């Protein structure tokens, strides 16, 4: 039996209107029927774009948001039905690491106080002395200096704060840690430190992770199994390597092709599937397959009317697409979208003389024709204007996304409000992925902490 099992989990937020009486005028279907299993000791990665419900799903496992329907079973206990006090006690076994390390640490509490708060609440350790010993050993595990105990969150850099967040989860010796965008607020070089730390801790302590992230490369790096979410439901789930080797759902294909690889050699050979339009509103999801409004392979009838179930296509690779086999076999034609080269046309250098390629070569080659006279420029822009309608049409083919953003932002706002009202740490803003926190100067022995970090 799996350690954590989700079965048909739904989280719907009511949309309220009215000043004196709250009328419910609809629902935001943030999570709409997700079933998955997480095995002990493995890492389950949930990936998807903002608004797909991945964060809400993570929070619903801890019951930080109320589950509308379905069950979350941890080790034989259904969390969805536990009464409040029992759930509170159960949370020791389920901990969360939040996205924004500064926002999720109380600025007025020192590290010792932050870390011991949970231990006190769950009755771990006889006295503060014992708790302090435990905290010290955990701090060492996550690579923080032991003098951190008396310091405050602002004294640490972004990476160190995330380490504190991880330590806070670890002191309670949880079975499952849910990491919500654990590295997206960090700089690239620091990201790698935290990813490696998570890996090491898992190996050492046998932890089970559910990692929620929008960055497919990060998720692929740390996860054993990956679930791809779109508009509140899983569209594909597979072993990390299998998913990368052969993505079966059109959305996964597009998502993977859109992730840039930091290597010109690879980028030159890659093609990108451009999706048309934007994510439809989760308050008014399209009928049939949720993805059919943007799907490059959408078929006229079946996709628009019948919602595909997640089905096993062999080797535990589950996919929710009617035509996954046909697309894989190449018998189905694309009906929308564009496939473009990942690199810019006429971008620099000749691959043959790789080493000697100087940047001066391309610009010399390019500049003579680029020196356009005003007339030429006008002619060019006119020619472009003629080209353009096609693209506009292509974009307009998904009628729903074009018509909806107004409603979407509206309902999103509401959803967020309800979410926040629900209490707990407000990290609702899924979208502020790369808010760069300005780290404060870390004056006390930076070299030492750097050593440990390394």
């Amino acid at each position, binding site marked *: 039996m799996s350690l954590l099992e989700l079965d048909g989990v739904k989280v719907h937020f009511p949309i309220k209107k009215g000043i004196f009486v709250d009328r419910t005028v609809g629902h935001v279907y943030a999570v709409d029927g997700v079933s998955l299993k997480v095995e002990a000791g493995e890492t389950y990665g949930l990936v998807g774009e903002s608004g797909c419900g991945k964060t809400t799903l993570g929070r619903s496992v801890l019951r930080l948001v109320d589950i509308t329907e379905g069950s979350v079973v941890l080790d034989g206990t259904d969390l969805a039905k536990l009464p409040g006090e029992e759930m509170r006690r159960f949370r020791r076994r389920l901990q969360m690491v939040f996205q924004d390390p500064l926002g999720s640490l109380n600025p007025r509490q020192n590290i010792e106080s932050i870390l011991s708060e949970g231990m006190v609440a769950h009755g771990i350790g006889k006295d503060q002395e014992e708790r302090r010993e435990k905290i010290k050993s955990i701090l060492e595990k996550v690579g923080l200096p032991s003098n951190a105990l008396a310091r405050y969150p602002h004294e640490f850099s972004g990476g160190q704060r995330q380490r504190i967040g991880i330590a806070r989860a670890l002191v309670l010796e949880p079975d499952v840690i849910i990491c919500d965008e654990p590295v997206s607020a960090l700089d690239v*070089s620091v990201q790698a430190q935290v990813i490696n730390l998570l890996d090491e801790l898992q190996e050492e302590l046998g932890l089970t992770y559910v990692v929620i992230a929008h960055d497919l490369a990060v998720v692929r790096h740390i996860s054993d199994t990956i679930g791809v979410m779109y508009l509140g439901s899983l569209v594909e789930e597979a072993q990390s390597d299998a998913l990368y080797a052969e993505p079966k759902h059109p959305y996964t294909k597009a998502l993977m092709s859109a992730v840039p690889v*930091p290597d010109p050699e690879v980028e030159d050979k890659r093609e990108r599937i451009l999706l048309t339009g934007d994510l439809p509103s989760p308050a008014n999801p399209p009928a049939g397959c949720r993805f059919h409004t943007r799907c490059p392979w959408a078929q006229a009838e079946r996709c628009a009317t019948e919602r595909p179930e997640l089905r096993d296509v062999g080797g535990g690779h589950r996919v929710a697409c009617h035509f996954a086999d046909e697309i894989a076999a190449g018998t189905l034609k694309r009906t929308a979208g564009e496939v473009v080269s990942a690199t810019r046309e006429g971008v620099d250098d000749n691959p043959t003389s790789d080493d000697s390629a100087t940047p001066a070569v391309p610009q010399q080659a390019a500049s003579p024709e680029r020196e356009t006279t005003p007339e030429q420029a006008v002619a060019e822009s006119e020619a472009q204007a003629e080209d353009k309608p096609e693209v506009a049409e292509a974009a307009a083919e998904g009628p729903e996304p074009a018509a909806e953003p107004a409603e979407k932002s509206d309902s999103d706002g509401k959803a967020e409000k309800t979410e926040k009202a629900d209490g707990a740490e407000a990290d609702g803003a899924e979208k502020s992925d790369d808010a760069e926190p300005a780290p404060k100067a870390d004056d006390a022995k930076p070299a030492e902490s750097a050593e440990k970090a390394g």
Partner: protein
Amino acid sequence: MSLLTVDELTITFGGRGRKESRAVDGVSFEVDQGQVVGLVGESGCGKSVTSLALMGLLPSKGVTIGGRAEFDGTDLFTMNASARRDLRGSEMAMIFQDPLSSLNPVVPIGVQVIEILERHRGLKGEAARKEAAHLLDRVGIPDPTRRLKEYPHQLSGGMRQRALIAMAVACAPRMLIADEPTTALDVTIQAQILELLKELVDQEGTALLMITHDLGVVAGLCDQVNVLYAGKTVESAGRRELFGHPTHPYAHGLLGSIPRLDAPRGEPLTPIRGSINDRIAWADGCAFAPRCDRYEMGCLTGTPQLTEPRAAGHQVRCVNPVLDDAKAEEVTA
């Protein structure tokens, strides 16, 4: 002669008794027509401040700008304010990172686009409205006439960024500065926006200065890449050269610390230790030395200079650069 030449740009904040802090410390680069030049670095490396200085958007008080920046032969920093205003928006335009906070929330998109057309191209009334609709259409916003009347909050993130790009290209500028244009967007939307920028550069011959922290974006888009660290360029090369043979330990380390979609699983990343706070002043030596694995005593004897230890045009600011290819290959493999 390049369209934009930046020479030894320094930007210092401070004054009025506060401790001075140098955000940009002698950065030089050139951008030519139809060329995409990348400024890459982590937060705090000075890349955004550079773009603001070039656009003349830094406050006049409390900031000291040194060095030269020439746009098409005219010095940007000595230009008078009204000439600068004429230039900004028509010849040089900027695309900002966060489209929601760079658009005025209480003014419809249309009015914001038309404002530029009125100011720089003298269009009025119906003509301006038509042109604005045409611009929105050109950047791929469906149903542009309706969108003109909508407010920023009614558009999705990707569409807001498109509207911002439409405003930037309204006067067919010769130079575009894009400051993290896709950072706030999802990857599938990012792909759309990058495609749009590529089209602009290819078809119009616009020069593009791309400021980003995402090396993946750079790999597919830029001709020339400048890697910044603590306000100085530490490595500068063509994209193939840079990604194929990262020579400064920082650039080398950055590439090693990015999880790659196409890399086999299970291999641990090789992070750079410490954080940007662990640095020393450039005057004392290499600012990266405290985090560097290849640190040696020579790193602390004054500012290292840009040299070309590997190939012509591949500049590296390091006294002990990564030159053995076996190690470099390990990272790229």
